[in-house]
């Protein structure tokens, strides 16, 4: 790990310099294995947050999870200069390959991480695919990549971002806090006739509810790709 930065008080981005990294596609994962001095080891799979540029670094954004032995080590203990045992990149299903279709990204909490890799890859490639991100987050201070998202909405043509706050909104916000429902997905997503590729990532219940609504709105289930994660990372 060459450097680290805090994205929110509980989420830290690790910048990794990986020798012989073959490059990765946005949405792919990396497996991190930690081994204690006495041989005990634990492995977790994390989405890659960065888009690949030749010779570049690999970034992971780790959300600290209560009682998460691996995540809390990566957020609170790991220091720049330390080495990590990695396996990857892995996974080829929850991946955006740059197809021309419009894209709808729906994130719950730290589920935004692999979707951010897609937004960054599109930005780097100066992609023109219409991209919309609907990002459900508890409160303004929990928003990952807030500054970069605002900048990209300004600078990346064809990118829209809608934040949906579940507990607490900014002071000047028009919508009351609440979970993503039919209205949000209808208003801020793409109409089903546009046949967008849809990527949904978040906690299990969020992903199930969102996918069900999208199918009910008329989206083709085969164009909806999901990634669920639990609470024990």
């Amino acid at each position: 790990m060459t450097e680290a930065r805090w994205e929110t008080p509980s989420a830290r981005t690790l910048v990794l310099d990986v020798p012989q990294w073959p490059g990765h596609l946005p949405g792919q994962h990396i497996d991190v294995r930690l081994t204690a001095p006495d041989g005990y080891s634990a492995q977790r799979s994390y989405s890659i947050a960065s888009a690949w540029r030749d010779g570049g670094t690999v970034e992971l954004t780790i959300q600290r999870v209560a009682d998460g032995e691996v995540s809390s080590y990566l957020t609170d203990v790991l220091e720049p200069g330390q080495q990590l045992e990695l396996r990857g990149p892995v996974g080829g299903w929850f991946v955006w390959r740059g197809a021309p279709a419009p894209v709808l990204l729906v994130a719950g909490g730290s589920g935004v991480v692999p979707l951010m890799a897609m937004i960054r890859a599109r930005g780097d490639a100066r992609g023109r695919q219409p991209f919309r991100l609907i990002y459900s987050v508890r409160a303004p201070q929990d928003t990952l990549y807030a500054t970069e998202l605002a900048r990209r909405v300004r600078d990346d043509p064809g990118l829209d971002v809608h934040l949906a706050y579940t507990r607490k909104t900014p002071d000047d916000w028009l919508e009351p806090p609440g979970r993503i429902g039919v209205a949000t997905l209808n208003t801020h997503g793409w109409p089903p006739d546009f046949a967008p590729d849809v990527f949904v990532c978040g906690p299990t219940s969020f992903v199930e509810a969102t996918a069900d609504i999208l199918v009910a709105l008329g989206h083709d289930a085969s164009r909806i790709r999901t990634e669920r994660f639990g609470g024990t990372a």
Partner: protein
Amino acid sequence: MSIISPGFGGRRRSSAPDLPPGQYLTHDFPVLSAGPTPRIPLERWSFTITDETGARTSWSWDELNALPQEDFTVDIHCVTKWSKLGTTWRGVSLDTLFENVESTADFTMVHSYGGYTTNVPLEDLLDGKAWIAHTFDGEPLHPEHGGPARLVVPALYFWKSAKWVNGIEMLQQDEPGFWEEAGYHMYGDPWREQRYQGD
């Protein structure tokens, strides 16, 4: 070759003497599951022993609770390397349940709500070595730990102590259960570190 991460893993575990090889001591009670947690209303719960001829002996929840109850304190050893010492349970000894079951079979398959299975030789269930437990640490056994009732066979790795147990089937020949089919050891003795097939 592994990279050692200084400061990792010291929080929840400590080593202790008198543990089976490769085990670590834990003070919490990790939950491992292979599927959704079944929720079984007590009025619909039952436990059935099926002998090799197909004859069945069943107990309802009330009938199980009317049998002699035992309090027991045992050490448990999970194949994922945690051990927990001095756990306290209450339940019915398998000796009580097998009292009126006539069988010449030497092997059993333990069945659970939700479809889980695990094989245990009959001799490891008898002579005070196994219980159907419904109470842990003085409280009704929580569904995520196998409630309303689970098998407890402390001499074997804890995957043999089937959660949500609902029956035991007598078998003339040993057959693999859910994890045994997928690489885990047929017997599972922690002191001989029989974790996987071929250990």
